[in-house]
């Protein structure tokens, strides 16, 4: 089972430029969370702060009692072995073949025999669909392949926490769908805590249990997916509908004047079409159901009273159809195939 990640009051600046401040959230153990946000709001910085690559000025990131933001360097290095991080462009070692890249963590941290390393690595290569390319150098393959190889390398040590930095960027829609399914299947298999940073709406609406959004130097919201998907917050609504109308502008955020003009230009109550909550992806047939689902049901139903009515209704609708066995795949409307 994955490990809970607790972020408390995190604040990060580069020089005089504040990226975000006072971000507090908890990634529930074993569940999939997605962090949304327009480009340039510090999503990647947030990811790197969780793993301790960047040091925020204030706040803590607690993993198993170790503070990744300000703890001892030795503890941080130890704790990092629990992580798998998939970088935006793979961050593979340019001088090594894909096989050696994926075998690198095994060779560094374990005393496994070469034959066993080979078995594990080839298994991971198979999972991400790169069989046959293991001898190539990272410079010889496409960006999408590099990304998948980066994911394979992140998985090779059976991590408890998996962080993915924009798993979709540079992938076509079909491959993005495959990656989404892959991430859900992974969660079903190893029950790791996962955080996906993305601005892809397909991933955001089908993969996560929890969603959050970063905007304007802060965390807009973080909670069960239904909360964000039904949120009436203008930023969230604009982002989820991909509309130009709202507080998000081309250059990070719009100024007050533009916003006022926009509000004046809006004719009465032309409401946006209501957002439909797409059901979450289920693990591929043949895999065991995700253990996180039962835990999440327990947790979410427990916090139901504190949630906005729309989110409550959505959650009740989610769990209404599934009865007592929420972990079983629903073969409804031909979605499972």
């Amino acid at each position, binding site marked *: 089972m994955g490990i809970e990640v607790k972020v408390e009051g995190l604040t990060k600046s580069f020089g005089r430029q504040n990226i975000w401040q006072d971000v507090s959230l908890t990634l529930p153990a074993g569940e999939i969370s997605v962090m949304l946000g327009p480009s340039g709001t510090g999503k990647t910085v947030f990811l790197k702060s969780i793993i301790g*690559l960047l040091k925020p000025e204030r706040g803590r990131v607690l993993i198993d009692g170790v503070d990744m933001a300000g703890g001892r360097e030795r503890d941080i*290095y130890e704790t*990092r072995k629990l992580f798998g991080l998939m970088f935006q462009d793979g961050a593979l070692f340019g001088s090594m073949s894909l096989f050696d890249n994926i075998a690198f*963590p095994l060779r*560094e*941290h374990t005393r496994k025999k070469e034959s066993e390393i080979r078995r594990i690595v080839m298994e991971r290569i198979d999972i991400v669909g790169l069989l046959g390319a293991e001898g190539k150098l990272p410079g010889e393959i496409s960006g999408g392949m590099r990304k998948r190889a980066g994911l394979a*390398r992140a998985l090779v040590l059976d991590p408890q926490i998996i962080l993915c930095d924009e798993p979709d960027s540079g992938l076509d829609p079909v491959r993005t769908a495959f990656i989404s399914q892959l991430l859900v299947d992974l969660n079903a298999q190893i029950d790791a805590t996962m955080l996906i940073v993305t601005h892809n709406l397909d991933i955001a609406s089908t993969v996560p249990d929890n969603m959050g959004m970063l905007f304007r130097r802060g965390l807009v919201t973080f909670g069960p997916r239904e909360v964000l998907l039904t949120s009436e917050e203008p930023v969230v609504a604009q982002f989820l509908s991909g509309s130009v109308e709202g507080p998000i502008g081309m250059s990070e955020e719009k100024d007050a004047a533009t916003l006022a003009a926009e509000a004046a230009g809006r004719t009465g109550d032309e409401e946006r079409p209501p957002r439909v909550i797409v059901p979450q992806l289920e693990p591929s047939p043949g895999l065991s159901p995700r253990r996180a689902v039962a835990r999440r049901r327990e947790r979410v139903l427990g916090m139901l009273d504190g949630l906005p009515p729309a989110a409550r209704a959505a959650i009740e609708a989610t769990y209404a159809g599934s009865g007592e066995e929420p972990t079983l795949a629903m073969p409804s409307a031909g979605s499972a195939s």
Partner: protein
Amino acid sequence: MSLDERQSPKGESEPPESPEMRAPRAPVPGLGALRQTGRLFALALEVARAIFRRPFQFREFVEQFWFIASVTILPAALVSIPFGAVIALQVGSLTEQLGAQSFTGGASVLAVIQQASPLIVALLISGAGGSAICADLGSRTIREELDAMEVMGVSPVQRLVVPRVLATMSVALLLNGMVSVVGTLGGYFFNIVLQGGTPGAYLSSFSALAQLPDLYVSELKALVFGFIAGIVAAYRGLNPRGGPKGVGDAVNQSVVITFMLLFFVNMVLTGIYLQIVPPKGG
């Protein structure tokens, strides 16, 4: 009451004076350089500590050693022959005017072994090996390879920097021996063949003025210079500024910084040596 009094004038002048609103503090001149120096020393300390941490990256060390040796041996030999010759000719012509031609051997030997050889070695190591190390680490840094390594719980300092610094040090040490021999032979050849010096006088003044500590300090200098070249190259490579162009700048700076440091450290070491080791001829 007194508290209120103290607070109110501050409250009035708050808007321009509050920490957020204050104009950027005028940078103290030299503070940036001081910070860089501090971080350079911090890296040197970290490397010194990591040298003794297991597991030692033997493979990486051998590869780097071989690479640095292969790009420096030939140029070092080719540079040291004319350098020995120039010193022999220059000193030879001077001593001839003074009527002390029999001491040419000793003078040129001391100049070559103590000064020229470690410096030639260091300049070549930093110019050929250090620039390659800096470019390699720099491009890895901007490709996020080092971040990836750190995320996997592997320290880039221990995995990459330590083998490189040890390689520059040991290549410097060994290369220094070769340059000393080649330079001395070059000086000998030019003194005997071109200036009509006698082999016996050359050799006897050699052993009259030169002593073993001269060789020791020469090797010590080479070791220290190799360390400096490795550390500076690694430091600049680990901290390139702003993308691929930053890597080019970093390589450039690493060579220049190393050169300046080398000549300064050489002066200090020479000064200390001359103070504590009594000259043999005196």
